[in-house]
């Protein structure tokens, strides 16, 4: 009798588990897809802008290096006087 009760409980438990509704699958609607696409486009534009800004910054930095650092006499020339030499006229 005890065995029978146990089997019955197992059967009920299996039935309960088996009757659980399937989880709803993730479905993406066209509207959602379009929204994501728009968001990606916006992000792409931002990246492009960032790249442009970075290029500009790099150019400015290189110009600065050329003017104030690379123009120094080569080591060990005493470190140089930087980008500008003190002018003389005579």
């Amino acid at each position, binding site marked *: 009798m005890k065995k029978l009760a146990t089997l019955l409980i197992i059967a009920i438990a299996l039935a309960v588990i088996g009757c659980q509704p399937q989880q709803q699958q993730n479905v993406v609607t066209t509207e959602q897809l379009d929204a994501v696409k728009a968001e990606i486009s916006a992000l792409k534009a931002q990246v492009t802008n960032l790249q442009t800004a970075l290029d500009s910054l790099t150019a400015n930095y290189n110009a600065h290096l*050329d003017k104030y650092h690379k123009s120094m006499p080569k080591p060990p*020339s*005493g470190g140089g006087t930087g980008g500008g030499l003190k002018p003389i006229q005579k």
Partner: protein
Amino acid sequence: MKKLLTLTALAILIAFVGCEKEVSLETPDVSYTLADQGGTLALEWDEIADADGYYIYADGVKIDSVNTTSYNATTPAALYEVSAYAGDQESGKDQIDCGAVETPSIIVYGSGDPAPDHPSGFGFTSSGSATTYSISDQSNWPLIDYWIHSVSADEQEFASPHQGGQNGFNDEVNTTKNSGLTDYDAAKICDAPGGYTAPTTIVSNAVYYFWIDPDNDGWGSSNDHFGKIQVVGVNGYAVTLKIAYQPIAGLRWCVVK
């Protein structure tokens, strides 16, 4: 009797012709000083016995004759000569070599050039030839007369050695001046002091006068030297130069030999 007279006249004539002295003119020994801040070569020599006067030649062309023992040469040339003359006789010529020594081509690199084997300095040997020196090698510093300073990758300038490093490559205060010419041969005399600068922006094809003034004491004929530099081309940091150096201290002439 008539024959006798004729013979006598002939004998007298022969005697006169035979007695005419053959003049042997010595060659003048010419020395010089400088005037007009190196713009004039003042020639002088001792009087030559029996000379009627003296011929002056510039670069092989007779330009003047004088009956004094001095001459102020103001026309730049590479060679001046003086001879003595008497009638149609002329002595040998004494020469004053005043030609500039030319270095046809050297490449000097702006100090911003990262390549270690690209020299940024140049100077002149005792013969007047230009040679390049690496400014990275401190043993070269005493030999540097000029160096090329990079303002940027595409702007170079002639700089004086006293402007190099922290305390200068050496103490010389050497300057340059844009002549305003692009014809190298047309530049025959450097400008007098005034308007010479350091640094001086380098422009392709321009001809520059240079003034080496080691003591920075103004014009002098002891150790100042002048010359001209043509910037044949500029390619990034690389600057190709053609240079003429006047070996006579203080003389501003730059006519190439």
